[in-house]
């Protein structure tokens, strides 16, 4: 195990930002921390990197030098949510500075900087000021500063922010590559489809607490949802027609003649299809596994509904 948070809690003046949160991260694994704004992700990250201390609970990071109460600075690669760069300074100078602060020797830093700038297609802009770069390129520089010193543990807050789809895919590839090299990665992102494709394990948070945690399959099971059927008829159909069918957890109306059925993990598809066939004339049917997006929305909305007076 690389990193473990055991029942950590953080209280600010009037807000309990994190409450009894537990999770682990192993080397060569990617874990995602998801939740709406104010869920406690940033507070959790700040405790993990040592900016603040938990009021209760314990963080154990298994550094090369032994167990520490937060991720060791020279083994940490950190990408903050807010871009934190000296915009009035040249790209290369800035990358070298942050690499030196992470403990790299000057020559190593220069060699690695050249390699990463080349990989991110920024080599010819190394002497330009950061302010002259586009948002996407600034994010690339930020990512380089997080990776250049070959960290054992990467904490990435919104790593895909500012990237176009092509660069999102390149980042996805890069993170898989790092995972294969044994780096433990904890990330937070709003691009659910990318997280779903990338993360080995996901922790869903809301109001400082862990709502669900596990692999995608485990989350599906825990959410009680297995798949999604999208049905299109040749005429308008009432929703009530489907609510009583066996195994249907949720009915979503998409159009007057189109509905989506979210199926429970024990749904009997044969019986279900018989039931659907008894109604209006079916034009098309599409089936897909339930996505993180639905699980996330349902988990968060369930919690929100519980805390509403």
């Amino acid at each position, binding site marked *: 195990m690389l990193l473990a948070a055991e029942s950590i809690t953080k209280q600010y003046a009037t807000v309990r930002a994190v409450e009894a949160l537990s999770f682990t991260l192993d080397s060569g694994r990617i874990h995602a921390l998801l939740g709406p704004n104010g869920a406690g992700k940033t507070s959790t990250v700040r405790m993990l990197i*040592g900016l603040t201390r938990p009021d209760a609970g314990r963080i154990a990071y298994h550094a090369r030098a032994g167990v520490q109460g937060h991720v060791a600075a020279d083994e940490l690669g950190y990408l903050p949510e807010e871009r*934190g*760069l000296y915009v*009035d300074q040249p790209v290369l100078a800035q990358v070298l500075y*942050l690499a030196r*602060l992470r403990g790299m020797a000057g020559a190593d830093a220069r060699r690695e900087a050249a390699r990463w700038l080349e990989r991110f297609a920024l080599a010819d802009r190394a002497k330009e000021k950061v302010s002259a770069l586009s948002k996407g390129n600034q994010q690339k520089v930020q990512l380089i500063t997080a990776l250049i010193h070959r960290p054992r543990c990467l904490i990435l807050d919104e790593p895909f922010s500012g990237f176009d789809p092509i660069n999102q895919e390149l980042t996805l590839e890069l993170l898989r590559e790092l995972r294969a090299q044994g780096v433990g990665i904890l990330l937070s992102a709003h691009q659910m489809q990318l997280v779903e494709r990338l993360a080995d394990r996901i922790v869903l948070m809301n109001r400082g607490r862990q709502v669900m945690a596990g692999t995608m399959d485990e989350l599906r099971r825990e959410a009680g949802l297995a798949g999604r059927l999208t049905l299109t008829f040749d005429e308008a159909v009432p929703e009530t027609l489907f609510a009583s069918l066996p195994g249907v957890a949720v009915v979503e109306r998409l159009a007057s003649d189109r509905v989506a059925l979210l199926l429970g993990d024990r749904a009997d598809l044969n019986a279900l299809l018989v039931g659907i066939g008894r109604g209006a004339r079916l034009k098309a049917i599409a089936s897909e596994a339930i996505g993180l997006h639905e699980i996330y929305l349902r988990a968060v909305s369930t919690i929100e509904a519980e805390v509403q007076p």
Partner: protein
Amino acid sequence: MKPWSSVLTVARWEFMRYFKWKQELLMFGILIGFYALLGFGQAALELAKRNTEYQVEVLNLAGLPLGFDPASNLKVSRIDPGEEVWSRRKVGLGEIDALVIVRSVDAAELIAHSEPRFMDALRQTLDRARREHELAAAGVAQADFERWTQPMTIEVSYHEEGRLPATRAEKVLVIVFLVMLLSAIMTSFAYFFVSITSEKQARVAEQIVSAIPTQAWIDGKILGISGHGLKSVLYIALFGGLALLALAKFAPELMAKAGGISPDKLAVGLAFVLLGILFWSAFMAGFAATIDDPNNSARSTVMFVPMLPVILAFPVLDHPELGVVAFLSWIPVTSMAFMPLRHALTDVPWWEVAGSLALLALLTFYMRRYASRIFRAGMFMYGKEPSWREMWRWMREPDPAQ
């Protein structure tokens, strides 16, 4: 990374962020050009003054023994009473610069075409003529009068158990120290303000603090940005040195009169100046982190506090022996200005100098620690400024990463 290595990396970065070779050389070029132009302008002005002649006509109704120096640029012609009207007309036309009518021993009238720039030369001539006339009337010889009006010769010596006064050079040295301190503080103040408020707005703090301890960051900042304060001190020393060289070359008698500077006074002054710069830099680093918007914050004015001790020191330059000066030379927030002043101009026991320096060093050590704590909390507070109570609380909270 070892803490000192981090401190030096940050110090180098902070210094180089604002150090641009081109700008420095340009500034040097402009300054040298400015002084050259100033010198050239002054020389040209003197030459123009020397070559300008003033045509003046004098109607001496009192019969004073007027004698004008033919080498002077005041060119005088005497006229008779019958020529007065024509002479006035010439003044009006600008053909001559002025008409002087000496009406009596005590009064003369000057009719000028424009502002009389020859007034000093004219007044000296009239005064001398009047004095000669009065001395002759009183039967006093000119040589006797001049001997009487010479100042009394006083030979000064100091008792071997007494204290030698500060030389003129040492008095100048105190002013140089104060100017250095003021210049360094103002320079550091500007850079700290720009550096920290821009970092806060660019949100780089999380990135840095996740890599090194806040204390290492603030120490590096203090060293790096104080480097710009020191740079201004070096520039003053450099230009001062050039001025001394020029003085030694063109006015050696002035240099001889100024006397020497004892090395211990130089060393003590520099030690206080350097520690003073570090002390106020630590203060400014912590305080700047609490300012959210530099354009609208009322707190910006507090950043001028470091200049007060230096400004307060100037009025007491002529009274270094006052009790209040001795008191302020012990207080760490003022000692960097008052102890060099006292030490250079009076006798100060070595233990007082050492004690005051130790106090200043101790307070500087704690100031950087408290600055780090305020900085750590202040850099993560966005959108509002902390209250004084919050800042006091932060100062007492140790860094969780240490």
